[in-house]
């Protein structure tokens, strides 16, 4: 039987972490809009985070569309609603599956990468060295990475949506003889701004959450090289958890404005 004080200290740790993350976010906003801007580093991070995640996200999206179609198709045929497949797949991918799956993949790849990179920099005192040399490490390392994830994730989501729909069309074409034009016509006939805009907006928040948690965990890494692994691990776990929380909030807000 664990002692009550363990729960209490756990709760206190949670609040402490939440407070620290909030302060970290506030600091990001303070630094983000204050010159000088680290454009080169931002572009480099965008390349590393966005472009270099494209293949992974594209493959995931393609398989996601393929599998979703294959799994849903028999049930839809059973109900005599085969013709509604494109619209159903389109709405599912654009509204929910595309952003969430892409964000989870990015949390795994980018969140852990940022956490490990910044963590190793912290434990090898490179961040300290930057401070000594007069460079603002927060602005250079944290702000650029959070901006990069925030900006790149929506683009990755759009790519994943497109590739996912393409994968779904392949199944439809092979099994149902649906043309490319008809498939995408039906998809866009049933997608509203209420589907596309909220999912794009929430993708920004997903990117922000991944970057923020990855940077926070890496920036405040301690306990040597073991801490680096822990930072990478917790960055992925916390970021993934935060994604679902953000998703829930996004759905509730969208429900208010668009009456899904």
């Amino acid at each position, binding site marked *: 039987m664990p002692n009550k004080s363990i729960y209490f200290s756990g709760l206190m740790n949670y609040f402490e972490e939440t407070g620290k993350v909030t302060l970290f976010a506030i600091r990001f906003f303070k630094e983000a809009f204050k010159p000088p801007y680290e454009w080169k580093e931002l*572009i*480099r991070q*965008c*390349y590393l985070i*966005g*472009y270099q995640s*494209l293949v992974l996200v594209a493959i995931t999206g393609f398989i996601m569309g393929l599998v979703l179609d294959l799994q849903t198709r028999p049930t839809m045929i059973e*109900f005599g*609603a085969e*013709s*509604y497949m494109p619209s159903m797949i389109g709405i599912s991918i*654009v509204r929910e599956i595309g952003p969430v799956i892409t964000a989870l993949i990015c949390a795994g790849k980018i969140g852990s990468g940022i956490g490990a990179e910044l963590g190793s920099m912290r434990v090898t005192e490179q961040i300290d060295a930057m401070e000594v040399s007069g460079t603002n490490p927060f602005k250079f390392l944290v702000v650029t990475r959070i901006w990069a994830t925030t900006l790149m994730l*929506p*683009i*990755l989501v*759009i*790519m994943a*949506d*497109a590739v996912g729909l393409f994968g779904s069309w392949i199944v439809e074409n092979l099994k149902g003889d649906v043309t490319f034009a008809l498939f995408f016509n039906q998809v*866009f*006939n*049933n*997608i*509203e*701004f*209420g589907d*596309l805009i909220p999912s*794009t907006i929430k993708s920004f928040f997903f990117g922000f959450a991944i970057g923020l948690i990855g940077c926070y965990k890496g920036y405040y890494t301690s306990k040597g090289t073991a801490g680096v692994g822990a930072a990478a691990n917790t960055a992925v776990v916390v970021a993934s958890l935060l994604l679902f929380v953000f998703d829930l909030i996004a759905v509730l807000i969208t429900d208010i404005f668009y*009456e899904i």
Partner: protein
Amino acid sequence: MAQKIKHTIRLGIFVTVGAILFTLSVYSIGNRQNLFGKRYRISTLINNAYGLQVGNNVRYTGITVGSVERISFRNDSTLKVDMILDDEVKDYIKKDAIASISTDGLVGNVIVNITPGSGNGRPINNGDIIESYSRTDPNDLLNSLGNTNENIALLSLNLLEITEKINDGEGTVSRLIGDAQMANEVAKSLSNMQTVTKHLITMSEQLNYSIKQISEGNGLLPYLLHDNTIQHQMESFISNLDSLIIEENKPVMANLKTASEDVTVATNELKIVLETLNKGEGSATTILRDTAVAQDLKDVFRNLNEGTARFNENMEALKHNFLFKKYFKKQEKERKKQEKKSKS
């Protein structure tokens, strides 16, 4: 440095492709909602939206031409549906077009369907309100289907009973199916009917021939049918007969008139007598109404009867009296003589 530029270019391509995809998506959705092209608004008034939402498609003759822009209350039972339509179809939708709420397939989205009017109307203008008609409520449809199903169930139950009876050999139908003798009889009946029909055909042919003969041939019947002089003669004959009857009947009618007048007079007199009787005046009324008088009269008649009976006895006694005997014998002889004479 070259590597950095290469990375930057790749990033640029990545961002551009993403931006293009996003723009295309926005354009596709916006285009469907006619956000970018020329558009115009029309409205319709409905009683039930059946779940219609803003953004649902508007179709004209089955083609998507716009979308629902707004649904608002006009009053407690009427809704106003504002629609944005593509400018290209403006000339084809006339003012007498009719809007209705329907579904895209059996389980699809709710849509507004515009059906063309007579085709002679003027093209619709921006802001016009077109007529609408209420579709059948699916619930009503399901209710009527439910009733139909119940009826079908009852019908099938009855049918089952009938087939069971047929299988058990009850009734005429089962005999028709199972009894070979009856089947033979039916076959014979049919054969007889066939013969009868043949005879009927022959008869009708003969009848036709006869009618043709009558209508076209000679003889008394066609003459009677076709000759107008006979008709005129018949008419004059009937007219003469009428006048004859009237002339002959005149004295009879006069006598009848006199007789009826006499009867009327007699009836009036009888009426007066009866009224007098009813009023209780005179001895006749006393005799009719007074029971004591009636009793006295009865006694008088009884006494008279008795008197006459005794008188007969006296007369009989006189016959046997020697004084009158001769007279009666003489009378007897005279009577016999008369009888002989009458016989001869």
